């Protein structure tokens, strides 16, 4: 692993003010994420997992605690930390190529190197031949691939994935999960995937963090040492998935209803 830089969260707290009342969405989150690892963060809606990503990417600086990457405190956004949103967020007036290249607008690379890098990434996500296509001409899965290419084109140290596959159909979703693994194996960067799909987190992550809501906090931390590619039907896989689901509290409700 070439970039063994730890992303470290220290006592992260976040409070929103709603109608004069404090609403604590993140409470004392502390986490060390080893460079080059693939972390899945799961939890029910409202557990603050997306908020956590926003803080890490630097879109929101109003929080308590310290976030640091490789020992340096994170301030504001940076091309070191890429993000892929749930909505692909491609600019509709730009072609695929221009959308991916937008991230390189302020890079130190020369014109030809930029072009090369954009072409490489479009190739990596399997969209060669679609360079001059506008987003509305792409399918949901293709648009999300393009967004992943844009997230990676600056060679970030960390790529944050905010439920990037959440809006896709089941088949496309499974395919893109394999692509993400493939990309991760090639690029060897830290990936943090927020999802509400436990199977997805267990399939992809070498570590899965479970969060609980009200206030958002870390409830459990699983290290998944199954070899890649993983077999979703295997006994070990289903066991771990089961444990993660229990940690999320998925079975509490049903038991209570049954009683």
């Amino acid at each position, binding site marked *: 692993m070439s970039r063994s830089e730890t992303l470290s969260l220290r006592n992260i707290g976040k409070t929103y003010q709603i109608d004069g009342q404090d609403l604590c969405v993140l409470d004392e989150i502390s986490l060390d994420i080893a460079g080059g690892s693939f972390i899945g963060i799961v939890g029910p809606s409202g557990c603050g997992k997306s908020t956590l990503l926003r803080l890490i990417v630097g879109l929101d600086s109003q929080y308590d605690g310290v976030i640091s990457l490789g020992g340096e405190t994170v301030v504001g956004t940076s091309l070191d930390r890429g993000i892929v*949103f749930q909505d692909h967020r491609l*600019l*509709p007036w730009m072609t695929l190529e221009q959308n991916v290249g*937008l991230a390189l607008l302020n890079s130190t690379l020369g014109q030809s190197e930029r072009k090369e890098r954009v072409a490489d990434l479009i190739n*990596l996500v399997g969209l060669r031949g679609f360079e001059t296509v506008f987003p509305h001409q792409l399918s949901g899965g293709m648009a999300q691939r393009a967004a992943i290419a844009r997230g990676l084109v600056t060679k970030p140290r960390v790529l944050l994935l905010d439920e990037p596959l959440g809006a896709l159909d089941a088949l496309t979703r499974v395919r893109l999960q394999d692509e993400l693994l493939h990309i991760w194996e090639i690029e060897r960067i830290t990936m943090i995937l927020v999802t509400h799909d436990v199977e997805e987190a267990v399939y992809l992550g070498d570590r899965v963090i479970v969060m609980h809501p009200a206030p958002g906090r870390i409830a459990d931390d699983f290290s998944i040492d199954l070899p890649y590619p993983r077999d979703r039907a295997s006994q070990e896989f289903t066991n771990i998935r089961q444990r993660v689901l229990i940690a999320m509290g998925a079975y509490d409700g049903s038991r209570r209803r049954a009683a």
Partner: protein
Amino acid sequence: MSIVDADIAFVAPPKPTGRRVSRKAGDHSWRYIALGLIFPASVLLFWQIAAQQRWVSDVFLPLPSKTAWAFVTMVEKQDFSHDFLASIRIVGQAFFYGSVVGVLFGVAAGFSRTVERVFGPTLDGLRHIPGIAWLPLIVLWIGIGAPAKILVIAKSVFFPVFLNTLQGIRSIDRNYIELGNVLKLTRGQQIRKIVIPGAMPSILVGVRYGASLAWALVVVAEGLSGQEGLGFLIFRAQSLLLTDQLLVCMVVIGVVGFAIDRSVGILQRHLLRWKHGFQG
């Protein structure tokens, strides 16, 4: 491991120009043109009959053929192109200044609530004084020449462009701005790459309306003051009872207005080709 899969394989890459595939009946466009011609042809025919049968006096409605001849006479003997170009020049300049200033103010006000608060109420008030109502005062100040008309028409172009630009900027998806922050775009880059293109559909609505308005206003402005231009000709023809020349002016005004609107429409379709299903 190949990562190209069925998700893509089912979709062939579209033509690289990204151009809209022709409209549903693009091959039969002559048919649409023909359909559009039926009504004006009937009017023309009725006009011819009405004039020939002397249902109305020649003074009120000359023969279409006589009107056509009047056009030839005006072009050959009365330097029609001079007046025509005078009107075009005024509209061209007024449209240019009005829309440029409109976009600039729109962007400024769109970005800064302070700018909007300082200028907003004043502009909103001035908006309700029609351009033509300004003309007498402006003529008093700077005379009956072209600049007065340019100023007045530019003012009328300014408002729709300004308001639509402002509206367009205000309605840009906040998520795109957020994306710009993530990608570390400078303020200038945000404006060029995100704000202006995002507001473009709205800006062009204002521009298209402004262009039509400018052409309509030049006729009025020239009729009210000055010694040249289509507006001047049309009012002079009326006072001299040269109804055929009057009709020539009307037709030319209509044709030019139509051409202006269609041109902006083509520009609009080209600039907004990224918009799904946009037909102009």
